[in-house]
């Protein structure tokens, strides 16, 4: 296992896009984790004489409509993005993994029922469903996570199901069965490790999507509570005051673009390394 990882990292290190992606992600993670230490100001502190300030030595990325330091707020926003992103990806990934394997292993009718269930969930346009559900639920991070999980686990379920089905009929599983291996051994020793490759690629590519949904919901006012410095809220402030300053929008969009670029390039590189067959697909 350790040798495998070593070679994978070795191969990734030779891909300039992968290196760039890892650097971006690492920088963002460090900034989010140590937000309190890095931030030059308290992210709630208002400098009323410096409202809508342009970037300067004093305020690196300018200030917002209440004179709050944009850089400090974006650092804090990184925390929110990572928390929501990781939590939602882990929960929806696990649900998708379990349901996908049940669909792959279960009887035909159960497989069909689960497929129909997945397809039905995928019929909801994400942000539109988020708007509808958010109106029924209290505003907050939990709601954001629930909405994201509902709209994204079907994707994992489908991928895991397809992978499980193709593995189930492969010769090495038949051989294992013929030798009398238990169901548990087949599932946990053979199917699961082979399903995880595409699963992690999907998770890496899904994380920026989730972070974007959180920012989008906060932009629309159905995400984090008012006053919370989500990247989406910063963009919303910028949009509301677009005639006063361009800097809020410019600075607020930057981390979102970086994070999506970073994870997308990483996902691409992982896919090229782990599963060259998938390349001609989507």
């Amino acid at each position, binding site marked *: 296992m350790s040798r495998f990882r070593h070679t994978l990292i070795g191969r990734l290190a030779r891909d300039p*896009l992968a290196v760039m992606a890892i650097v971006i992600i690492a920088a963002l993670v460090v900034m989010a984790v140590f937000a309190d230490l890095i931030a030059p100001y308290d992210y709630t502190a208002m400098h009323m004489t410096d409202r809508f300030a342009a970037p300067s030595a004093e305020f690196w990325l300018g200030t917002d409509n209440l004179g709050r330091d944009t850089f400090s707020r974006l650092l804090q926003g990184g925390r929110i993005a990572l928390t929501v992103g990781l939590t939602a990806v882990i929960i929806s990934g696990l649900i998708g993994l379990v349901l996908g394997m049940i669909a792959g292993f279960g009887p035909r009718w159960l497989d069909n029922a689960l497929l*129909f269930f997945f*397809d*039905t*969930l*995928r*019929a*909801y*346009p*994400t*942000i*539109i*469903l988020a*708007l*509808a559900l*958010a*109106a*029924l639920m209290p505003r907050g991070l939990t709601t954001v996570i629930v909405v994201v999980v509902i709209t994204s686990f079907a994707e994992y379920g489908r991928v895991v199901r397809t992978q499980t089905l193709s593995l189930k009929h492969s010769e090495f599983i038949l051989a294992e069965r013929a030798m009398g291996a238990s169901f548990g051994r087949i599932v946990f020793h053979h199917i699961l490790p082979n399903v995880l490759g595409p699963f992690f690629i999907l998770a890496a590519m899904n994380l*920026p999507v989730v972070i*974007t949904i959180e*920012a*989008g919901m906060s*932009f*629309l*006012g*159905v995400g984090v509570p008012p006053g919370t410095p989500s990247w989406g809220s910063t*963009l919303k402030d*910028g*949009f509301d005051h*677009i*005639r006063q300053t*361009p800097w809020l*929008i*410019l600075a607020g*969009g930057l981390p*979102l*673009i970086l994070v*999506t*670029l970073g*994870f*997308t*390039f990483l996902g*691409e590189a992982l896919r090229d390394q782990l599963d060259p067959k998938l*390349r*001609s697909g*989507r």
Partner: protein
Amino acid sequence: MIQYTIQRVALALGIVFVAISALYGVMIALPGDPTSVLLGPRATPDMRALFREQMGLDDPLAVQILNFWGRVLSGDLGTDFFRNRPVAVAVMSALPHTVALVFGAIFWSATLGILLGAFSADRRNSLLDRVTGVISVAFIAAPSFVVALYSLLLFSVTLRWFPSIGAGEPGDLLSRIQHLVLPSLAIGLAWVGYVARIVRASMLEAMGESYIRTARAFGLPRRRVVYNYALRVAILPAVQVLGVGIGGMLSSAVFAEIVFSRPGIGTLIYTSVSDRNYPVVMGAMLVAIGFFVTCALIADLINAALDPRHRKTQ
């Protein structure tokens, strides 16, 4: 093909039925007085009583859902109690704007995407091919509402090339198109990337096929073989991706409509949600999901009609 079409249509209808019923059920079954959940806190007691009677809120949930569908099938999407008009009117006046927006986005992604993809495939593994590859991924990764905000800032507020608000003068086609350029580009940009990659991949696959080699061996010009023969095959997968992508485009349309203050389904749902105007939310969701499922179905059927192998894979 007929059997396949029937199967697919039945499945699509089933998906719309279950998706909407579930949403309706969730709204009804939520704790609290359904009239206040569905009508919102601003509803008057009269409105509540009328609503309770109209919706048959004392019936079992399953009956209520079936009744809802009965009304929908007879063309009645309910009543917008706030503006005192049928929900169908609100939805139908918003829908054309959103459809125009989504098709504008499809136009961008199809033209730019196919051009970029064919261009890269023609020059495979050159520096230009690599650059286009990176650009495609960057397009895919850029969140559509950030693209919408940046383009609003750059082209409308700073450069003033395009209008920033509304959908244009009714009846004035040029003004409509001017108002459509930026929002549809914001939605379509990601799909430019997707289409470019898929067109490139399938063209490269096609160029390895024997009939392409034969065409070349017969002395047909390379350019013609690449852009006529290989590209034609490569457009199919792009159609499928765009068909499925319409769901994502509808989500992006919500942002584009709000950022550019355009009327449409997204704006309608957004304002109705803020007003807690649930009959309108339900009606708009029904239309949005119906539109998405229909487009995915059409893309699927086009593919199946053009490529019989597709009918078996699923």
